[in-house]
């Protein structure tokens, strides 16, 4: 009986595990496998009859490391900016807004997100161009003197990634804050906390899982993004995804490209672990400082 039950679960889970196996494990294993190979001749992208770690040594040169730090900076600043923008917005959406209008506000967040990624990014080229309307308006208002000089700089990439990934931050934050619920906030007010105290001791701590998943959803795809950087970045805003893409597309060296992709994954995972650990430490420090001592009870 028990065995049949297990098979039954496996059958029900078929779409899930088949998806994971064929669209995650197999491709990942192929990338890993290719990364131990080499490029045998001009017209062949990879060969695996001799296995080595040489591609990793080749990939880890100064170009890769320098570009990786550049990418990490864009990724960290981009994620923080998304958080700073999304947090008040999601709070307003979940708490302050008339529920009648909420679907409309969510649609306004989502509809641009459904637009083709490349088209959205190209749109910023027009907005940021030195002879574009934004440049003219800023000059007429006297905010800048001379033409707007942002396009093809790192600032343009920074702006582009924040714009492109913002919905991925807003949605989990909205869900988390919404889930904290009105009764808890009312209880907090009844117990004498003012609005700020409620925000910092009730709403935000309960939103921490949402903040964490929003940061992951923004940071990880952002680290591998190369479209935003190649459309808006120019020479200053070079990102590591472009290096990987150039090995697959232009150089036709799948072995080296795979090694770079694996290194990117490892380094991104390492960065996530470091930030995650830092977050846990901060949280435990905050908790310790706020620990509530019950009268007569043990701590």
């Amino acid at each position, binding site marked *: 009986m028990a065995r049949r039950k297990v098979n039954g679960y496996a059958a029900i889970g078929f779409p899930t595990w088949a998806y994971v196996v*064929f669209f995650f494990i197999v491709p990942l294993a*192929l990338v890993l496998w290719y990364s131990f190979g080499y490029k045998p001749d*001009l017209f062949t992208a990879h060969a695996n009859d001799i296995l080595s770690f040489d591609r990793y040594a080749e990939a880890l040169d100064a170009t890769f490391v*320098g*570009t990786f730090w550049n990418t990490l900076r864009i990724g960290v600043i981009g994620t923080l900016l998304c958080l700073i923008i999304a947090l008040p917005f999601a709070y307003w959406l979940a708490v302050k807004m008339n529920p009648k209008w909420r679907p409309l506000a969510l649609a306004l967040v989502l509809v641009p997100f459904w637009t083709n990624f490349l088209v959205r990014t190209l749109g910023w080229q027009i907005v940021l161009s030195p002879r574009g309307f934004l440049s003219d308006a800023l000059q007429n208002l006297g905010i800048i003197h001379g033409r707007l000089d942002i396009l093809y700089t790192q600032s343009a990439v920074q702006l582009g990634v924040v714009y492109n990934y913002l919905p991925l931050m807003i949605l989990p934050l909205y869900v988390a804050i919404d889930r904290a619920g009105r009764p808890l906030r009312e209880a907090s007010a009844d117990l004498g906390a003012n609005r700020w105290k409620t925000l910092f001791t009730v709403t935000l701590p309960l939103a921490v899982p949402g903040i964490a998943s929003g940061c992951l959803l923004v940071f990880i795809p952002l680290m591998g993004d190369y479209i935003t950087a190649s459309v808006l*970045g*120019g*020479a200053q805003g070079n990102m590591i995804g472009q290096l990987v893409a150039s090995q697959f597309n232009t*150089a*036709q060296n799948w072995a080296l490209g795979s090694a770079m992709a694996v290194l990117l994954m490892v380094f991104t995972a390492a960065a996530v672990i470091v930030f995650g650990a830092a977050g846990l430490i901060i949280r435990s420090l905050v908790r310790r400082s706020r620990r509530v001592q019950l009268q007569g009870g043990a701590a």
Partner: protein
Amino acid sequence: MVERPDIRALVPRASAARLSRRAFLSGLVVIGGTSVLAACAKSTGFAPSALPDGRVEGKLNVYSWGDYDDPSNIRSFQKSGTSVQFDSFGSNEELIAKLGATRGTSGYDIIVPTGSYIPMMAKNGLLEPLDHRYLKNMGNIDPLYLDQSWDPGNKYTVCKDWGTTGFVYDTRAIKRDLLTWGDFLDAATTEASKNVALLEDPWEVACTFFAANGIDPNTTKKADLEAANEYLVNTLAPHVKAFNSVAVTSGIPEETFTLMQAFNGDVRQGLLATDKPDAWKFVYPTPTANLWMDNWAIARGAQNMDAAYQFIDYILKPEVSFREVDYIGYSTGIKDLAAMAKKHDFSYPELVFPDAEVIQRLTPAEVNSSAGELVAILNRMMAKAGS
């Protein structure tokens, strides 16, 4: 009008035959598995092409670059009763990957590869040799564009269109005459510093240095590559604002750069889009530059042979070809186009039809053993410019 396309799937021909719609849906996983295996195993078999039999088929599948043919030409060709289905690819590598993976079952009849990739494609059996008897209009092509080094005797391909590389500069920022690649590099590191756009193309970027120093742009010598690396990464890169192959079309009207390496037809597009065309000057630099050519070819395994030959022959007619030039902004290599352009009041003809003297000095790019190093140089330049 929307034609209903046949269902095409990248599967081995043996399983393609028994592939119903239901099987397609329920069998996705199985196909996923076998194609993974197929990618690991090295098979050599190729599905055979159909032979021309004089009966023109009712359909034709063309795999080309996006928006690269005049729709009015396609419409008038379809009046003969053959419907044409276009799919597009974004790079030669993508084209080759798809043809290589399907081994003759891609379903495409006509493909449009770039010249430098043709030796590799022919060597790997991706192309069907052309039978010139079915291409009566080949005589309309200017001999300058026949019999290229990468396809002697036009065994596999016919010129679709060609272009070359030069540079364009803002005469308000650079007040002297620039004529050579040496001048280009000099201006890039002085007046135009931080306002320079280079093509995002390893061969083209390296060519600026090789040409300026009298070195063959297709060099494979280690010393040449080292010298190029040293100059391009350490001297030129810090002055570059962007590596972007389409910078010029928006860069001229928006005045984002003062000096841009660019393809000739793209410069024309940029000039047509700006309200100050007189401020810009385009140069066909000496001593040499790339002559790239995109070509009509028939894919190995093509099933609509007669229609394919008929289409290529149709597009080689002078009046059809001129409409192509007008639409895509590049010369198709047909004789007397320049005279037709004059008659039709075609703007900036000098950007599409350079003088014979310019054409003579061009060097077709080759994909050779230095390709990997050129990519590495460009990546180092990008990292350096960003640091």
